[in-house]
């Protein structure tokens, strides 16, 4: 049993694996492609057959892997009778469809794509019926919606195909969303998401107050998928798909998924009045209504589509009755419907393929032209009509028997009467399929000369028709055991399965006779009735659907355009106001408590710093139009912030802030070289007032929030204590901030240096793009002398000073880096300092001069940094530890003092290199713009060098 159980994930995975091949194999020809597709299905089918003996003995095969146990999402599969029936249908009919599609698709159709989609769909369906975990089932459920979208819209050039695909996706997707909710509620009640557990919790689930919401949500998913009223409208539109798709999705698989789920959940959900009213009523209404519409459809596939909806309604109704006997009939009819309906769809496809039309009004008299197709279609259609001794008769008779004893609304006979009416319509449209297509006079105006297709195309429907006859004649031999084991899975009890043709003079017999005679009569009156039908107005589902979709689209468009109309200012204002409102709501919802911390005393020096910051900020806003001045003021703000960090015991932050400040200001200065120096006054006073209003409210709110936080202690125990306690023991460093960066939160830092590297590369790419485009051409014509320039652009003093400072700055960088683990410092700060040291050279002697002396490209520096950090992290794996676990120890080389090593140091080297590379690449990109604008490239380190013999003449530089 264990071996058979382990087949289950393989069966579910095989179609997905197989889906990789058709796209590749199509190059080897259409036959090879089809063969490869079929082989995946055949393999899965063989594995499934190997499981048959165990399931037939009544065992339930299971297989489980924990995936996300904390969420209750596990890859658990199970196979019982119900799963076996559906998996068999999906794989078996799938195989026939693959064969049929090989001959159906024309040379122009991309067959590789078709088979890939088909196998994806097949895998998703198999996944649904084998899942033991309802969350896993939901994943597969959504996959069927997506893959059926691809299949229905396969003929991308047809607008009907695209619209039908969208409609199917919208309806089934929405139903799927509802079902997710229902399943979560169900799992919550049962305390597990595993079906095998849920199915044992009938009392708890039905007693729960959440039973009804869960039931409605799950049924929404089932009804949309199985095209039950009022969601039936998508199925006929999905008929724009190629016929193999219709035959597969809409006879045997996708629309049966809803039925499958109702059958699956039957043991826990059925049996209540709510279940009966919702499910049985929906089924009954769908069955009659769709059967009536089917009678008046001239398109063969539309006729079959509505007949499918009707039969799904029939099965839904049977499940809805909630009795064990009705469930047995439902199971039996699922088998029968799959056989005759798939065969009928394929014959419709054959007629379309050979006669080039499937409009009934243009057909008729085909029986002599297409004798084989005629035979197949007649047998299948008679089965659909419920004519003895075919299998459709058996299940329809049993259905009528069940309904005759059920009580719905009104008088006792009402449900039986309505069901008989449905059966009557069903007989009528089945007869019409035979009479108006094959019987009657042969015509001479067919769009193409009809003839029987090759064996490959009629083999599949013929096989199914043989099944129709065999099950019909000897039901207990060919279907009895399967029905029994499936019904056992559905009802969770030993079912009483006895299928035979003659029940005696029971009500069902009379109902059947009425249905057949009435149906024949209806067909005889079809002409006048059709005129009456055409004359009566009726709601058009597609028009309503389109109107709803359009309304939803325009609503979301209005909302999006209202918030974002291409004006960043409006978007930012809306955002700021929204945040303020959200904050106000949160504030009013809670209650601010009084201070619990003693305020720190205000001393003179910090007060001066605060004053400077406030003045600089106010001036910055007041004079922001003068961009150069604004930068100077921003520098003051940044300096004050750095000093604030020093004062409030954060030396690492102060070091970082001040170095970033320097780099940022240099960057902005370089950028300002090309941007206008002044910001024009554009906004109206009213607008400025509005913006100031938003800004002041925002500022006051932030002040209040900050103050409220600062004066209170932590609401909960802070995790910082852990970091302080373990910094030395676990990370081997006394500078807790640095240890957090390279050890505790090393993964964060790792991500951040990668982001930084990406940012630098983005800047580089942007610059290259701009320089290649119109911006570059404009720069080339840039008037380099439009602003007054210093006469001595590379002054002697500065050049000499920076040369002397270079080794010192590098030394400081190395020092800061090395002490980082135990004292303030580290890779980030050292990287910034070294970058500034390089920048000084750039400023003193010009970009070109410095660049000539650069050996390693900045891209390589960034890459190397990330690489070193990664290798350090991966190194932990070699010791069997998680990524980035650090290690440390002590080395002692006499006579030098003992010193510490830590793998975190190597990680910090990576940080260091990335920071240097990123900063330099960003500034270097800007400098390449300057070069394009005609910036003079100096050959010498400084403009005026007294030591130089050949000093340039005046005006030559």
């Amino acid at each position, binding site marked *: 049993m264990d071996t058979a159980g382990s087949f289950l994930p393989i069966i579910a995975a095989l179609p997905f694996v197989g889906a990789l091949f058709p796209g590749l194999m199509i190059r080897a020809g259409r036959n090879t492609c089809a063969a490869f597709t079929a082989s995946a299905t055949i393999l899965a089918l063989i594995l499934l057959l190997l499981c048959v003996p165990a399931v037939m003995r009544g065992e339930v095969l299971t297989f489980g892997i924990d995936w996300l146990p904390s969420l209750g999402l596990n890859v658990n599969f199970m196979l019982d009778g119900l799963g076996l029936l559906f998996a068999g249908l999906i794989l078996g009919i799938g195989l026939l469809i693959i064969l049929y599609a090989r001959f159906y698709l024309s040379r122009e159709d991309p067959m590789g794509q078709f088979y890939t989609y088909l196998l994806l769909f097949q895998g998703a369906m198999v996944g649904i019926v084998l899942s033991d975990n309802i969350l896993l089932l939901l994943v597969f459920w959504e996959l069927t919606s997506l893959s059926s979208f691809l299949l229905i819209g396969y003929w991308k050039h047809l607008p009907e195909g695209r619209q039908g695909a969208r409609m199917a996706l919208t309806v089934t997707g929405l139903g799927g969303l509802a079902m997710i909710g229902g399943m979560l509620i169900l799992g919550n009640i049962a305390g597990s998401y595993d079906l095998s557990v849920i199915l044992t919790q009938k009392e708890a689930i039905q007693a729960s107050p959440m039973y009804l919401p869960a039931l409605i949500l799950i049924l929404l998913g089932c009804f949309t998928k199985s095209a039950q009223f009022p969601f039936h409208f998508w199925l006929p539109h999905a008929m724009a798909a190629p016929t193999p798709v219709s035959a597969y999705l809409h006879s045997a698989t996708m629309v049966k998924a809803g039925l499958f789920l109702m059958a699956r959940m039957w043991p826990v959900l059925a049996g209540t009045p709510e279940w009966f009213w919702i499910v049985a009523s929906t089924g009954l209404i769908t069955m009659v209504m769709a059967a009536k519409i089917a009678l008046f459809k001239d398109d063969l596939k539309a006729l079959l589509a509505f007949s499918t909806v009707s039969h799904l309604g029939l099965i839904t109704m049977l499940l809805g009755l909630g009795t064990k006997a009705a469930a047995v009939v439902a199971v039996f009819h699922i088998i029968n419907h799959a056989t005759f309906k798939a065969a009928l769809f394929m014959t419709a496809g054959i007629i379309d393929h050979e006669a080039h039309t499937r409009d009934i009004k243009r057909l008729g008299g085909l029986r002599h032209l297409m004798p084989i197709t005629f035979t197949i279609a007649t047998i299948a259609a008679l089965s659909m009509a419920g004519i003895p001794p075919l299998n459709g008769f058996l299940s329809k008779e049993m259905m009528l028997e069940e309904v005759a004893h059920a009580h719905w609304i009104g008088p006792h006979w009402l449900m039986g009467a309505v069901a008989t009416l449905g059966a009557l319509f069903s007989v009528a449209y089945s007869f019409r399929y035979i009479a108006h297509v094959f019987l009657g006079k042969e015509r001479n105006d067919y769009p193409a000369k009809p003839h029987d297709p090759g064996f490959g195309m009629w083999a599949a429907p013929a096989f199914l028709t043989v099944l129709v006859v065999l099950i019909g004649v000897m039901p207990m031999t060919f279907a009895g055991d399967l029905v029994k084991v499936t019904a056992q899975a559905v009802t969770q009890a030993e079912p009483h399965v006895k299928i035979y043709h003659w029940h005696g003079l029971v009500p069902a017999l009379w109902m059947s006779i009425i249905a057949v005679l009435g149906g024949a009569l209806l067909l005889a009156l079809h002409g006048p009735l059709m005129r009456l039908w055409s004359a009566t107005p009726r709601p058009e589902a597609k028009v309503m659907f389109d109107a709803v979709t359009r309304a939803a689209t325009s609503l979301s468009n209005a909302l999006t355009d209202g918030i974002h109309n291409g004006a960043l200012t409006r978007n930012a204002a809306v955002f700021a106001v929204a945040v303020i409102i959200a904050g106000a709501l949160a504030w009013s919802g809670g209650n601010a408590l009084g201070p619990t911390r003693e305020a720190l005393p205000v001393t003179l020096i910090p007060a001066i710093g605060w004053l400077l910051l406030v003045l600089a900020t106010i001036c910055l806003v007041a004079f*922001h139009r003068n961009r150069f001045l604004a930068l100077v003021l*921003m520098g003051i703000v940044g300096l004050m912030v750095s000093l604030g960090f020093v004062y409030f*015991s954060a030396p690492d*932050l102060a070091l970082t802030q001040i170095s970033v400040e320097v780099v940022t200001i240099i960057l902005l200065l370089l950028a300002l070289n090309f941007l206008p120096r002044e910001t024009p006054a554009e906004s109206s006073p009213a607008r400025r007032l509005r913006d*100031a209003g938003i800004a002041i409210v925002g500022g006051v709110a932030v002040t209040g929030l900050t103050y409220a936080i600062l004066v209170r202690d932590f609401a909960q125990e802070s995790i910082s204590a852990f970091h302080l306690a373990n910094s030395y023991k676990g990370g081997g460093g006394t500078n807790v901030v640095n240890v957090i960066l390279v050890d505790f*939160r090393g993964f964060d830092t790792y991500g951040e240096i990668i982001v930084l590297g990406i940012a630098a590369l983005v800047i580089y790419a942007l610059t290259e793009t701009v320089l290649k485009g119109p911006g570059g051409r404009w720069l080339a014509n840039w008037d380099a002398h439009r602003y007054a320039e210093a006469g001595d652009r590379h002054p002697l003093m500065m050049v000499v000073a920076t040369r002397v400072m270079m080794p010192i700055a590098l030394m400081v960088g190395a020092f800061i880096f090395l002490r980082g683990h135990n004292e303030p410092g580290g890779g980030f700060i050292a990287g910034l300092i070294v970058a500034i040291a390089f920048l000084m050279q750039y400023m003193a002697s010009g970009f070109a001069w410095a660049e000539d002396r650069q050996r390693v490209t900045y891209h390589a520096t960034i890459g190397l940094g990330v690489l070193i950090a990664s290798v350090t992290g991966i190194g932990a794996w070699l010791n069997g530890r998680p990524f980035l676990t650090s290690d440390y120890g002590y080395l002692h080389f006499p006579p030098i003092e003992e010193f510490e090593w830590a793998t975190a140091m190597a990680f910090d080297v990576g940080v260091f290199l990335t920071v240097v590379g990123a900063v330099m690449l960003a500034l270097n990109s800007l400098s390449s713009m300057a070069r394009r604008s005609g910036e003079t490239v100096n050959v010498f380190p400084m403009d005026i060098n007294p030591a130089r013999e050949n000093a340039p003449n005046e005006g030559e530089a």
Partner: protein
Amino acid sequence: MELLFATAIGLLTAAGIYLVLRLRSFPVIIGISLLTYAVNLFLFGAGRLAINLPPVLRKGVETYTDPLPQALVLTAIVISFGMTAVVVMLALGAYLSGREDSVNMDDGTAPEQEKEA
């Protein structure tokens, strides 16, 4: 001192919001930078203010400042430099390519129709 700290953050925020709502790219960048200061200070303040308390382990010292916000803010400062640099390049690229440093799409709706908003 807490009040001074809080008002400084509030002022930086207000100035940042006001400048972000301007129509040209350069003040917007400055505004974003001011907001960055405000946010970094705010995050830092979440560890509560402390004077003369080391974040570095020392023998005989019992109380320390909160190191966690410091570590988070340190990377935030460096990352915000990266972000500022990218935004500056975007603004510069847009200006050089289109000779226009307005932040709003110029399709006739902005900034004139903005007034009615």
